[in-house]
């Protein structure tokens, strides 16, 4: 459970530390008027959505952290037979990195108002995500063909469950990507669309990080 404990400890420490810093020097029993709030409504909305995304990412991190902890505990048992990971996984990893880069470029293009570059990188990022999902599907078929199924042994069960769960989270991201694409088609790069692009880019970076840790774990054990 070390991984899970480390992830939880960092999440909780970050939150508690932040809250503690906020509250350390205050004197709540003193009555006074509230401070002038300089943030504009659009900045507040951006902050709200970023906090929301952070909460979602914390929950997803805890799901993967716990699965990985379970993986490491289960690995120590005698019947563990490591998989031969298909080489295609390296290519898929490259595709996912490309998705992240493209969406990051899209975010930059949206900020600078470069509509043509935005469209190209944004649609490219989505398309590459679909390529990644297709690639993962091919990996599963290759493993099946080599005789590895979900119920074959614990290592292959974990492989299918963990990679499947990662793809599911990517599909969830693609729903948000699709909604933003529709809004972009309807009204160009408005503030709401820019926020959607930013959030998608951040989420994709996060899923890339999860995948890198996951891939490292799966391929080294």
């Amino acid at each position, binding site marked *: 459970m070390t991984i899970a404990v480390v992830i939880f400890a960092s999440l909780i420490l970050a939150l508690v530390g932040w809250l503690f810093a906020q509250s350390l020097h205050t004197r709540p029993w003193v009555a006074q008027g509230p401070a002038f709030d300089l943030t504009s409504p659009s900045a507040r909305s951006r902050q709200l959505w970023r906090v*929301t995304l952070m909460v979602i990412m914390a929950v997803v991190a*805890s799901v993967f952290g716990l699965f990985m902890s379970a993986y490491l505990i289960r690995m120590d048992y005698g019947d563990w037979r490591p998989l031969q990971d298909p080489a295609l996984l390296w290519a898929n990893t490259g595709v996912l990195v490309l998705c992240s880069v493209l969406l990051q470029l899209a975010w930059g293009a949206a900020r600078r108002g470069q509509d043509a570059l935005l469209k190209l990188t944004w649609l490219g990022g989505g398309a590459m995500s679909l390529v990644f999902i297709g690639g993962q599907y091919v990996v599963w078929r290759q493993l099946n063909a080599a005789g590895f199924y979900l119920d074959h042994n*614990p290592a292959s069960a974990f492989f299918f469950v963990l990679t499947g769960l990662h793809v599911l989270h990517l599909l969830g991201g693609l729903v948000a990507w699709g909604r933003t694409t529709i809004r972009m088609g309807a009204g160009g790069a408005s503030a709401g669309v820019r926020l959607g692009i930013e959030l998608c880019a951040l989420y994709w970076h996060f899923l890339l990080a999860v995948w890198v840790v996951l891939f490292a774990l799966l391929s080294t054990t």
Partner: protein
Amino acid sequence: MAQTTHDQYPLVGPLEMEEMELYHPKTWLGKYVFCQDAKVIAIQYSITAIAIGVVALGLSVVMRLQLGFPNTFSFIDPANYLQAVTMHGMIMVIYLLTALFLGGFGNYLIPLMVGARDMVFPYVNMLSFWVYFLAVLLLVASFFVPGGATGAGWTLYPPQAVSPGTPGIDGGIMLMLLSLIVFIIGFTMGGLNYVVTILQARTRGMTLMRMPLTVWGIFMATVLALLAFPALLVSCIMMLLDRTLGTSFFMPAMISLGEQTEYVGGSPILWQHLFWFFGHPEVYIVALPAFGIVSDLLACHARKNIFGYRMMVWAILAIGGLSFIVWAHHMYVSGMNPYFGFFFATTTLIIAIPTALKVYNWVLTLWRGNIRLTVPMLFAIGFIFTFINGGLTGLFLGNVTVDVPLSDTYFVIGHFHMVMAVSPILVIFGAIYHWYPKITGRMLNDTLGKWHFWVTFLGTYAIYYPMHYIGIEGVPRRYYAYGDTEFMSATVQDVNVFITLAALVVAAGQILFFYNVIRSYFNGRDAGHNPWEATTLEWQTQHTPPRHGNFGDELPIVYRWAYDYGVPGARDDFIPQNVPPDASGLTGDPNRHPEQHA
């Protein structure tokens, strides 16, 4: 003293909060069924949770009838006794307590107490309830499938949870696991709302350190739940795969009914780790909202500021953080390395420090307070007693050497019912008596409430105190019948009869509560807008019950914390949070409100 408005304060600018677009229902369905108003969702959550909780109460009566009068009732056999044990535990912990505290009180109180119009994502909030409702339906359906509900115990330990011989290994366990998965998905939607609303939608002036402790308790409990429920989700998914697709995450290679099973050597201990990694924070998911609510009840009804507000907040944070490193104290008898046992016993004892700190602060809040022994106050004081009792027996069980002989005895049942069943339930009752006037606009009947309190409070002691004694004698839990067991003295059965009679009285006593709630809804005394003279924002709404949008045209501005009760020199013995400093009637005490004299 002249009334002043906030505009005279240089610190206060014009309201710049972006007004949220409120959902306006057009149909009856939109207003009462698929409603997006957090207050309606809160009531939907509460009614569903209490309804399923009544089912769980019925199941406990079944258990007690069997234990008090073994082999008397033909409708109770070993299988449905175990099913009653399992479903009682699961429903009470997750579907009643978690859902009621977070889905019920969380939804009603968070937006009102932080001065928001609604949750930040009302649509997701509405979905959250209906997904929870679906989880409850799946749970109820498991009673009616062939083989009945699962009888694996609420911890659902493999391999017996899915092995022949345990009741409900077909549809029962599958529906249970599915229902939990659905519950967690629904909760995550709600939890996201609670956390983001508290962090991002507080009204002007409502700094974190001015939030009522109720909001702090619900906030930290939600954070714990968002992080801990995934452990249960992960384990449920893996067990469901073991059960349906023949994987071996948890199921060891074993011989069942004389035949080798197809499982190839999974780890049942892995389930225990994952389950308790969720299970222990779950205790605090239930306890922290109760801690928060009881702090507010005590301050309000003792007319005194809560003692050590900042300490109370930090204690909530500390308990939340520590609750993630104590899980294996539920597993001392699982064959773990003794050094682990030592580590987890130490962390368990450390968590007692912030908890004890809270208890001292509650007692010190009462010290020389102007105590009004209202029904909510009775329940709050009852909570302190019960929580201390349950907490002290927790120190016994937290130590490995004491726990090993007491493990799986009635001592454990006595302990955890005191600390995480009766204590939070007392707070829930106190909270309902406290906020019912705001929710309905009518007061609950005081006499009935006091009868309800004494029957429940004394009755639960009559049930759980004796359990500690029979537990020390070694009477094991989860047994259908004991027969002639040598190590148990003959009086154990007499104690069991006594406990059963007490349980029947307590169960029947709850009729007083339901009668009171229904009767008062139609005939109760008019409550006015702030019958308890409380300071928090929910009592300062224009309308009672609050209408959609909570605060009329303009959101309140907060100038002070939630605990200005009995302020020396003030006109009234309470100053609501939205009263500006020089409108409070204060005359002296420059240290208390220095800006007045600036």
